[in-house]
């Protein structure tokens, strides 16, 4: 029976009332009195020496308040990087400066050179066109392997090369892996590219800086997934504003997918300029600007080798990846191809030794950072593709090969430093095969053939590390931040509750799901609970929302704070009923004395906390507000199995997805409807990557797919009706809710399923095609069929 409230209920998303009726309050909806507008003049060349920026004519244009250039930021810090990776020789990565506005050089198309602040947006733009920029063009560094060759042009002249780091993991295992591959009965090798993506959140980025001269307080309104982190990074590292003088507000945010985690130049600029001009300064990113200024995702070039023994047991995995960092290090960029990628190379399998080598490379492209899945899709894709290829080479069933190598006993310590606490990969595979109607495939294949179409089936597994992350562990790995979460539960006098969380909802449905947890613990109605987030003046601290961490970490903090509330209310109830605290039970919003018919209602206890006439004042303080910080003991490990069935038009190469099934194990589920929605969205993004999306540059560093005319986003008719299931639940063992997180799974698990299916279709039709790089577009499929 579906529950009608609390944990496990498909409560309707309360936030959708305002989103669907146009009553949301997004950053661009915020307009301050006296607001000025900034337009950024961005580089239209990928690489060059900035010889001069003449702003004189622009300064005299109508409405112009001031024109800023890199020189104005000489005394200000650059944009910081939040993660330092140590290379395989024990040396720190090369970390270039990242000025707010370009200084000395421009390094990618879109690099901001100057900023005009004017009375209107159009005046700012007009004046920007009057700025005379003299750039000595340099060769664009585009190909990662060529960028590492001796004598290559350098993106950053003060670094020794274009290599950010050469990372080996686990370095001590390298020789053992080499030996295992040498002695293997069979080795399957696959070279592939994980295509660069543009995040394309529906709401482009916006920043409004405000300054109060009488108090010296700065406020930044911004489209962010983690306002507290922005306050820390911008305040401490860029502008030198202490936290108590800086407020960052991220109101309703229309999607992020990772791209709104990072601290961007435009945020620092608006905050800086608001103080310099004593005027609020607003920037609204255009869609065209977003393509060349939002951090991109993926962009790996990989060679993976899978070694098997004579019985088809996996004996080793070795990978070599070139990871594109772009022109600068975005906030968490160095951690993505390393700690969020290398640690997942075991997948769902008990491969005894693994070695992952990653060379992170600077190029004259937009910086690359986390994008939905962040490192884990790249790991999953290569592993699940090479397993499929191995099964074909060995002539064995790809599902059986996977099952044979599944990890089946938990906890399981992988050879890549992480320990899976729970899982049941056979259970999700069994569920998947039932959902995918495997026995009906032959009939569907025959039907496709009759219609002149090819048909293929692709199956794969995935595992991810979510609930990011234990602070002491990530500290050892180079993180310059903790990754706990905080929650404050404020119970008001009449019993209603406001929960302030450091998690940030930008589409995830926290305002609905989080109250379900608190309501369940207290036995009260969800409608009595409201979630506040996105404002550094409200929650004490927050690490934000990404890495499928909000319910696992933010939700756990909320549980801990609510437990403190329960403990305190029990003391009050015990006092009111003149009973022993140990005998007090809280059930359905009522405090009972065990074994008696004495009870007191939730609202009477909360009122007593604020009207403490009859109250144990000698023992506890009045009021009812508790804060907890929760630091997870481990990552969580959602896992699952996906199946995709495609038809391929042999005349045109066009792939259509006919069926898609996803069996996920997310541990306990708070709101099944929201979880299904998350999986649907993730699948659409994964299918988008597999079939359509491609941030393509030419050799001069011009982004060819710089608008929706050339960058293909998935649309409703590109995706099928999904079959999703999350009934296989092995609860997480180390967080109080037993939850694992579900936000990224769909985007992680789906690309290999699609490509496996397309290769299957082509092979069934007799084409000797073992791999096609994503996006598997009609022209690429057709070219592959031509041989």
């Amino acid at each position: 029976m579906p529950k009608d409230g609390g944990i496990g209920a498909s409560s309707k998303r309360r936030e959708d009332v305002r989103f669907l009726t146009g009553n949301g309050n997004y950053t661009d909806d915020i307009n301050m009195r006296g607001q000025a507008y900034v337009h950024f003049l961005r580089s239209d060349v990928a690489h060059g020496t900035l010889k001069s920026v003449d702003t004189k004519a622009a300064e005299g244009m109508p409405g112009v308040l001031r024109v800023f250039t890199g020189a104005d930021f000489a005394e200000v810090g650059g944009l910081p990087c939040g993660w330092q990776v140590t290379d395989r020789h024990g040396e720190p990565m090369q970390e270039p400066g990242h000025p707010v506005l370009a200084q000395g050089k421009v390094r990618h198309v879109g690099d901001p050179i100057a900023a005009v602040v004017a009375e209107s947006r159009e005046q700012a733009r007009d004046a920007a066109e009057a700025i005379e920029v003299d750039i000595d063009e340099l060769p664009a560094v585009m190909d990662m392997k060529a960028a590492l060759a001796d004598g290559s042009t350098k993106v950053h002249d003060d670094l020794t090369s274009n290599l950010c780091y050469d990372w080996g993991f686990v370095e001590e295992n390298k020789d053992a892996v080499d030996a295992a591959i040498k002695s293997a009965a069979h080795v399957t090798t696959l070279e592939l590219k994980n295509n660069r993506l543009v995040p394309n959140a529906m709401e482009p980025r916006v920043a409004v800086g405000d300054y109060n001269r009488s108090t010296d307080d700065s406020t930044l309104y911004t489209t962010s997934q983690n306002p507290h982190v922005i306050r820390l990074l911008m305040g401490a590292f860029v502008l030198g504003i202490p936290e108590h003088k800086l407020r960052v507000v991220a109101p309703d945010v229309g999607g992020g997918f990772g791209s709104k985690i990072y601290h961007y130049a435009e945020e620092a600029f608006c905050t800086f300029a608001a103080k310099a001009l004593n005027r609020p300064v607003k920037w609204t990113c255009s869609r065209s600007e977003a393509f060349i200024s939002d951090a991109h995702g993926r962009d790996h070039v990989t060679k993976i080798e899978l070694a098997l023994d004579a019985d088809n047991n996996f004996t080793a995995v070795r990978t070599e990846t070139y990871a594109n960092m772009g022109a600068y290090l975005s906030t968490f960029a160095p951690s993505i191809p390393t700690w969020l990628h290398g640690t997942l190379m075991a997948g769902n399998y008990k491969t005894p030794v693994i070695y992952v080598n990653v060379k992170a490379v600077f190029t004259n492209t937009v910086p690359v950072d986390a994008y939905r899945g962040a490192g884990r899709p790249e790991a999953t894709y290569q592993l699940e593709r090479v397993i499929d290829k191995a099964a074909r080479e060995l002539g064995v069933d790809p599902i059986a090969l996977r099952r044979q190598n599944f990890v089946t006993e938990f906890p399981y310590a992988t050879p890549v430093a992480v320990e899976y606490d729970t899982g049941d990969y056979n259970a999700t595979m069994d569920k998947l095969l039932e959902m995918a109607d495997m026995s009906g495939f032959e009939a569907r294949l025959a039907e496709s053939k009759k219609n002149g179409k090819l048909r293929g089936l692709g199956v794969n597994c995935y595992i991810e590390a979510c609930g990011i992350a234990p602070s002491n562990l990530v500290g050892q790995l180079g993180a310059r931040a903790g990754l706990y979460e905080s929650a404050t539960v404020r119970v008001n006098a009449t019993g209603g509750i406001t929960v302030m969380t450091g998690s940030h909802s930008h589409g995830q449905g926290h305002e609905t799901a989080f109250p379900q947890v608190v309501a369940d613990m207290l036995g009260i109605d969800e409608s009595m609970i409201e979630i506040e987030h996105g404002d550094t003046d409200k929650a004490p601290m927050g690490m934000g929302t990404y890495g499928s961490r909000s319910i696992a970490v933010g939700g756990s903090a909320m549980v801990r704070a609510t437990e403190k509330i329960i403990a305190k209310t029990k003391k009050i109830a015990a006092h009111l009923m003149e009973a022993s605290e140990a005998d007090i039970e809280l059930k359905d919003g009522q405090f009972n004395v065990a074994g008696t018919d004495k009870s007191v209602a939730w609202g009477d206890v909360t009122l007593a906390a604020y009207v403490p006439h009859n109250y144990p004042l000698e023992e506890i303080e009045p009021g009812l507000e508790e804060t907890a910080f929760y630091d997870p003991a481990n990552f969580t490990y959602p896992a699952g199995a996906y199946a995709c069935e495609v038809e391929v038009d042999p005349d045109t190469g066009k792939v259509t997805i006919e069926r898609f099934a996803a069996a996920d194990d997310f541990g306990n589920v708070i709101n099944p409807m929201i979880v299904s929605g998350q999986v649907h969205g993730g699948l659409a993004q994964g299918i988008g990557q597999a079939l359509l999306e491609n941030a393509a540059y030419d050799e001069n560093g011009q982004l060819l797919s710089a608008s929706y005319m050339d960058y293909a986003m998935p649309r409703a008719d590109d995706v099928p009706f999904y079959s999703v299931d999350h009934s296989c639940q092995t609860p997480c063992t180390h967080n109080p809710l037993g939850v694992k997180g579900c936000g990224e799974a769909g985007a992680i698990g789906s690309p290999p399923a699609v490509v496996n299916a397309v290769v299957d279709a082509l092979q069934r039709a007799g084409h000797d095609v073992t791999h096609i790089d994503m996006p598997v577009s009609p022209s690429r499929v057709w070219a592959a069929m031509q041989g």
Partner: protein
Amino acid sequence: MYAFDIERPGTIADAVAALAKSDENQPLAGGQTLIPTLKQRLAAPETLVSLGGISEIQGICQDDAGRVCIGAGTTHADVAAGAGAYPALASLANNIGDPAVRNRGTIGGSLANNDPSACYPAGALGSGATIVTNAREIAADDYFQGMFETALDAGEIITEVKFPVPEAANYQKFEQPASRFALVGVFVAKFAGGVRVAVTGASEGGVFRWSEAETALSGNFSASALDGLSLPADGMINDLHGSGAYRAHLVGVMTRRAVEAA
């Protein structure tokens, strides 16, 4: 966009006069290309002369010769709904862009712009249509002169397009995955006097007639007549979405499908 003035004449004569006032003046039809261009600041007209209020270039009728005559200001949605006498053309119009585009974009605007990936140029050339302007009548064969190039003189306005109705016709579009313009679109029309095959999306020279296919199909209007026929990849558009060879191949596929569906 840059600042500009706008005029909304009620007649073609007034529109022509308004355009003649300055070389920097530009006509605005449905705006489906021009407005995005203005927003990108890639055009800076002094005055936009809107053709949207000119009733004499709206609507669909049939002339005495049986031709379907469509006012240049008629939207794609209105052609889709109102050109039932020429089903292949109505169907073409019904598959341009999305509903928003179809409710604003006009046939005259599309033909005047002559985007190399647009659908209407294939429909007009494949049908052997006549493009009527404020000054003259131009045969489709003379009208299309390369990517974004037409026979129109500066300040000349399309007022009407006259389509002879073929015995059988069909348009097949293979969509570019991002823009959903035609990566390759082929319009095939069978008239008593022969078959016309017009191809859009494929060539660096814009819409063109595939004469070998026309000859083959004029003798035998069946897909098998196309066996062994192919176009060279030279001169075909080669971009992110497909090579010249792919496009040349698709022309064959789409032509075959159009013949089968006609």
